[in-house]
Structures are given as structure tokens and as C-alpha cells.
């Protein structure tokens, strides 16, 4: 009896593991990825409004916990607030917030490197939903003209690339994500090439495949190369050099770079409707 029960239990687990592995295979296979992507798309279309509804209800709780983890500054802020008249202060804060948002949107309107490329301005609704990826979620999707592969820029430079586009939302892989690789050019006449590699959230990015002793200086800006089959249009600032050295006998220069775009200020971004030329 116990043996039969153990066999059934083992069989259940084996079946579930096989189903899971099949789903993973379907998702990672280029031909069948559309199937899992479609399922995710439908689920996200249903889930997004529900999530927003729940967020409207629970955001005060989240704010409470966020405040609890940063008690010192909350207390200081509270003391500061007590010195001012409540109504006037609230209005001032509101105006300041709106001005900040307006500044961000205006900055997006005048990005010099986009030239005449069409863009969709979107708002960030979610950040870092998984502990293992550097992604953000935007409030614009396929219905708004956003598609997989489109570059995403913010004030300062390249933010990332669309990796999933649902009906009304999309997921962006940030340049700092470990899967992100961007071909870049730099130096006088943009004669040097390399690849900016994300190293995961919180870690410095690196510029790889740069030959040893290539002349470079701190603060130098690396731009998207736009070479044939590149995933990004040319001339978008990607990163700035923070440190560099060539170790003895090394086959390439070690260059650490910081993101050109301020990834802590991603309330609004532009999705560039650009596909690589065939």
C-alpha cells in the first residue's frame, strides 16, 4: 500500500518535471517561442489591470514598509514637514513633482541622437520584478506601436531593448542586465570598436573586445556603432569610461564603464521604432 502510494507520488513528480522541461524547451526554441510568448501576452493583458488595481489599494502598505527600512530619513523628513504649513507644503511638493516629470518628458523630446526616428514615449510601471534580471515594465505595448527588439532611450542615452511586447505593456532589458551586449564605437573619428557588456544589476559594465593599449580616457563616451546587423541605430550614447588598464600579456584592454543614461531616473523613456535594415 505504502509502496503504491510512493510510486504514485514519484510518478506525479516525474510528470510535472517533464511538463516543466517541455515548457522551457518551447520557450527557448526560436520556432515555438511565439506560443509561450502568446500565452504570456494574454496573461499579462489580464494581469496588468488587476495588478494596477491591487497596487492602488496596497501602495500605502508598501510605502509604510519602505519608510520603515529608511526610518532616519523619514523622521528627518517628518520634522521638516512639521515646520511648514501643511496645505502650502503639499501644493509645493505637487508642483515640484509635476515639474520634475515635465522636465523628464521635455528632456526626452529633445534627445539629439534620435534625429528624426519615430518614438513612443512610455511610463515605467514596474522595475526589477525578478531578483535575477535587470528589467523594467512600460505602460505601452503592441497596440501603441512597441515591438520586440526596439531600442529604449532616456535622458542621457541608451536604456535598453524591448524583449517582450504584450498588448498594452512591454518588458525592457536594461543595459546593465547580464544578457545585454551593445556594439559600440569611440575615439577620434569613432575608429575604435568594442562591445559593452552588462554584468548584472549593481555591477559595473565592461567594454570588451577592445585591443590592448587602445587610447581611451576617463569620461569618454561610447556610442552605438550601428554597424551591419547591429541591434541599435548609430550614435546613441551607451556608456562612459570609469576606469581602464591593460594587464601585461592580456589580449584585450580592461575597461569598466558606467551607463550613460541615469538608470535610477526611469519614470519616462522613449521607445525608438527602429528595426535593423535587412
Amino acid at each position, binding site marked *: 500500500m505504502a509502496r503504491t502510494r510512493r510510486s504514485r507520488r514519484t510518478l506525479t513528480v516525474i510528470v510535472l518535471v517533464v511538463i*516543466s522541461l517541455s515548457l522551457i524547451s518551447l520557450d527557448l526554441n526560436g520556432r515555438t517561442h511565439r506560443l*509561450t510568448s502568446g500565452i504570456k501576452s494574454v496573461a499579462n493583458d489580464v494581469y496588468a489591470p488587476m495588478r494596477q488595481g491591487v497596487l492602488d489599494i*496596497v501602495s500605502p502598505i508598501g510605502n509604510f514598509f519602505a519608510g520603515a527600512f529608511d526610518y532616519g530619513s523619514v523622521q528627518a523628513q517628518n520634522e521638516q514637514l512639521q515646520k511648514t504649513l501643511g496645505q502650502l507644503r503639499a501644493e509645493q511638493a505637487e508642483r515640484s513633482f509635476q515639474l520634475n516629470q515635465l522636465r523628464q518628458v521635455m528632456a526626452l523630446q529633445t534627445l539629439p541622437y534620435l534625429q528624426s526616428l519615430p518614438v513612443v514615449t512610455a511610463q515605467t510601471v514596474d522595475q526589477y*520584478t525578478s*531578483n*535575477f534580471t535587470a528589467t523594467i515594465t512600460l505602460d505601452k505595448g503592441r497596440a501603441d506601436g512597441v515591438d520586440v527588439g526596439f531600442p529604449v532611450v532616456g535622458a542621457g542615452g541608451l536604456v535598453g531593448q524591448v524583449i*517582450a511586447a504584450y498588448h498594452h505593456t512591454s518588458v525592457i532589458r536594461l543595459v546593465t542586465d547580464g544578457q545585454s551586449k551593445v556594439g559600440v564605437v569611440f575615439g577620434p573619428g569613432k575608429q575604435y570598436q568594442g562591445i559593452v557588456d552588462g554584468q*548584472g544589476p549593481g555591477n559595473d559594465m565592461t567594454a570588451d573586445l577592445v585591443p590592448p593599449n587602445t587610447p581611451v580616457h576617463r569620461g569618454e563616451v561610447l556610442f552605438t556603432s550601428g554597424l551591419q546587423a547591429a541591434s541599435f541605430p548609430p550614435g546613441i550614447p551607451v556608456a562612459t569610461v570609469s576606469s581602464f588598464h591593460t594587464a601585461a600579456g592580456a589580449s584585450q584592454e580592461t575597461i569598466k564603464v558606467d551607463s550613460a543614461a541615469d538608470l535610477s531616473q526611469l519614470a519616462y523613456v522613449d521607445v525608438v521604432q527602429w528595426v535593423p535594415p535587412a
Partner: protein
Amino acid sequence: MSVRSMARVALVIFLVLMVQQTVMVALRIGGAHPDLLWLLPITAALLDGPETGAIVGFWAGLAFDLVLPTPFGLSALVGCLLGYTVGTLTAAVDPRAVWLKPVAALAGSVGADMLFAVLGAILGQEQMVQVDFLALFLVVGLASVVLVLPVNRLMRWALAGEGNRRSLVSAEGDTGVW
């Protein structure tokens, strides 16, 4: 598992998913946030054994896979294996032991995150092993120890009436708070 229990488990999975994606993701400490997903198979396994743990882990993982940018099916695989492992390893342990839930939550969550990252890297998502594991394990592990009690309460409600010895003993042995 009865239809009633399945419906209740589905409701608990949905509730936990919503809390995770709205409140927990905002609690980023050292680049990591608490992960409630793993507590579902852990508590199900502690209450009703490895088979229920595996089933709950699979469905909970699948629900989370729908909204996460990681490979579809990966959370389901890890959740299933986690539920089965926790249920099997704790089968001989007295379910009334006060240390059982916190220890299972800590070890299970950290182990699941490790397995999740390694499997992801094997599947070509190398960035999944490029995170600060110390911060991740501390945040996820400690949050799991704290949150295992409310999640266990929800899961016990969901699995009530299954007639499993472990859940009955657990209910009798509890102080009534959770």
C-alpha cells in the same frame, strides 16, 4: 486533492502573486527583494506531504512564470522540485516542532534561489548567476523566515479538509495564532 482545495489553493497562489508583484518587489534591499513564491510549495509540503508540495509548487511556479521575464517553466520546475524535496526530507520530522517552519523556509528558499539561478545559467541565461548572492540569500532567507507563518496560515486554510495526518497534527499542535 479535492476540487474545493484546488480552488482555494488557486486563490492563495493568486493572492500571493499579487502581494509579491505589488508590495514585495518594492522592498529592495541590497538589490534583492523577498520572494514569496517558494513559501507556497514549502508550506504545502509541510502540511500535506511531498506530492501536494510538488503540485502546488508546479502551479504556483507556472503562475509566476506568466509575469516574470525569466524562461517560461523554470519557476514551475524549481517549485515542483522544492515541494517534493521539502516534503520528503521532513516526512519523518514531528510537524509540531517549532523550528520546522522557519528552518524549512530558510533552507528551502535559499536552496530554491540557488537552483533557479544555476538552472537558468545552464539554459543560457548567464546573467542569473551574476547577482549578489550574499544579499539575495540574506534578504530572501530572512524574509521567508518571517513570512512563512502567514503563508502557512493561508495554505492550511486552502488545504483544510484534506484529512492528511500532518495537517491535522499541525492544526492541533499550533498555538492558534497561525
